[in-house]
């Protein structure tokens, strides 16, 4: 069992770091709202999702302490993201190619 109990260090970030992350998250929330009022066409979704992913990363890395976690915990996070990628990618094999040939009978 020793192989995986790689002594998690109970590293605690300073209060200043947490405040900085909080301020960044609030700023990104305002930015999301502001961008929603600007018509960027195709890029509206891209930018909204980009901001959302940045916020998710900040929460996971700082508030959930993934930054200072064991390799096993990081593997769990990567595994979760990988499975989300499987869900999106294989679903897109349908949605991205559905119109390439017509549906018989239509």
């Amino acid at each position, binding site marked *: *069992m020793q192989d*995986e*109990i790689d002594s998690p260090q109970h590293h605690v970030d300073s209060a200043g770091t947490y405040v900085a992350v909080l301020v960044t998250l609030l700023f990104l929330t305002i930015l999301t709202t502001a961008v929603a009022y600007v018509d960027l066409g195709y890029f509206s979704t891209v930018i909204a999702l980009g901001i959302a992913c940045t916020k998710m990363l900040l929460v996971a890395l700082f508030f959930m302490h993934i930054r200072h976690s064991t390799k*096993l915990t990081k593997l769990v996070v990567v*595994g*979760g993201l990988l*499975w989300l990628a*499987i*869900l999106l990618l*294989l*679903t897109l*094999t*349908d*949605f*991205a*190619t*559905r119109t*390439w*040939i017509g*549906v018989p009978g239509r």
Partner: protein
Amino acid sequence: MQLTAEREHYLNASYGLKSWLLTKDHKRIGLLYLFTITLFFFIGGAFATLIRLELLTPQGDLVSDDVYNRLFTMHAIAMIFFFMIPSIPAVLGNFFLPIMIGARDLAFPRINLLSWYLLVAGGAFALFAMIAGGVDTGWTFYTPYSTTYANGWVIATALGIFIAGFSSILTGLNFIVTVHRMRAPGMTWFRMPLFVWANYATSLIQILGTPVLAVTIVLLFVERVFHLGIFDPARGGDPVLFQHLFWFYSHPAVYIMVLPGMGVISEVISTFSRKPVFGYAFVAFSSVAIAVLGFLVWGHHLFVSTQSAFAGLVFSFLSYFVAIPSAIKVFNWTATLYKGSISFETPMLYAFGFIGLFTIGGLTGLFLAALGIDIHVTDTYFVVAHFHYVMVGGTIMAFLAGMHFWWPKITGRMYPEGWAKLSALIVFVGFNLTFFPQFILGYMGMPRRYHAYPPEFQVLNVLSTAGASVLAIGYLMPMVYFTWSLKYGKVAGANPWGATGLEWKTASPPPVHNFDETPIVTHDAYDYSTVHGEEIQVG
């Protein structure tokens, strides 16, 4: 070791309802699950009985089409979500996984109890829906039936499944942490029994897949109740998106149901042929491979759903890969038997049944993975026969194998071997009589989910209904003799089968904390040279 009346074990350590309802002992929680899933098994069985009675004649003369829709929906919901998914992991896994790795309990005993309460709460919603009039969407809740047209108790049932899903997630979490953190000294990953590997792989699926089911149910809820456009094309949604999300969980859920069963079979085959499982590492990794590959194949449920033909090709191709780790298991079990000292006790009979029936179920799955054949037999009884060969011929046979194998450990009593062998035979005959004719019916074109059918299909349907009656007797018999054995069964020793696992090195029934002293593991799993002459430390 002699069993004495005074010896304290998990069953006599405390008494009264409160001692059970507030227990944190994984063994008692396993038994709570056993009572709960047995209830749902008989509820699901009652719906199946009505379905088979209706199909005795070609006319829809027993129930209306609407009632029939509700019967097959509720049969599936009771059996899948409240019997099969929790069956082997939550009952046998809960009871034996910690003992098999030399732990005193699961990592989070309170969360383990919470998991059971969540299953009961979810089951209560589903039961309420059944009693109040049922739901008629099919267990798959396909849109737009479920979001727009269905009149039944869609939300109550879906909420029940949503809540029960968290039970499944928490059990998976508990198992994974337990296996990582609580193995006894010397219990390395490659000394773990294959039942533990199988439950570990199952837990990965439960954690990675079940949240997607929960999300899908929430989306269904917001569209049905708040009319948001997610699946409805009139509001900018896509009904096929529901099928993608639903099967992303529900195809791997098939492996949640069957993988733990494969773990049971590995234990039983090894014990009753007195040989280590052939190719241990391959069998262990094939469980993980099934868990991973199971997530890449869901689109084979969508071949006729207007899914892109290109996506269909990809999913058809990927579906064949699952056959590889499944075949590794079947071939390795067979190789384990080779030159083994085989004995034919009841668990072994069920294990033989599993191997044959699961192989038929698995190979017909390959028929269905082939695009051309699938389009011919989609929504026919061929599909019904296929998944019953996997679920009933596979999982339930394995569950019964496990129940007989570990019954002496759970209760300290032997079941009557003669009656048990007879029941195994009756289950095998009844099962094949019920479901084999359905392959032929499906091939001939009889569609599923109709309460009436053309008269030329009657003979095969009568055979199927007759088989179901035989099967019902086969399932009732263990209920009777297991109960009988609690009082009258021969007292079991610590290791009545001469098996190798740590669970057989403690007393029957086990003490509250499983072992008086933490065991130190010095041998590989299935090392039969260690069985005789060893010292039993508890008693």
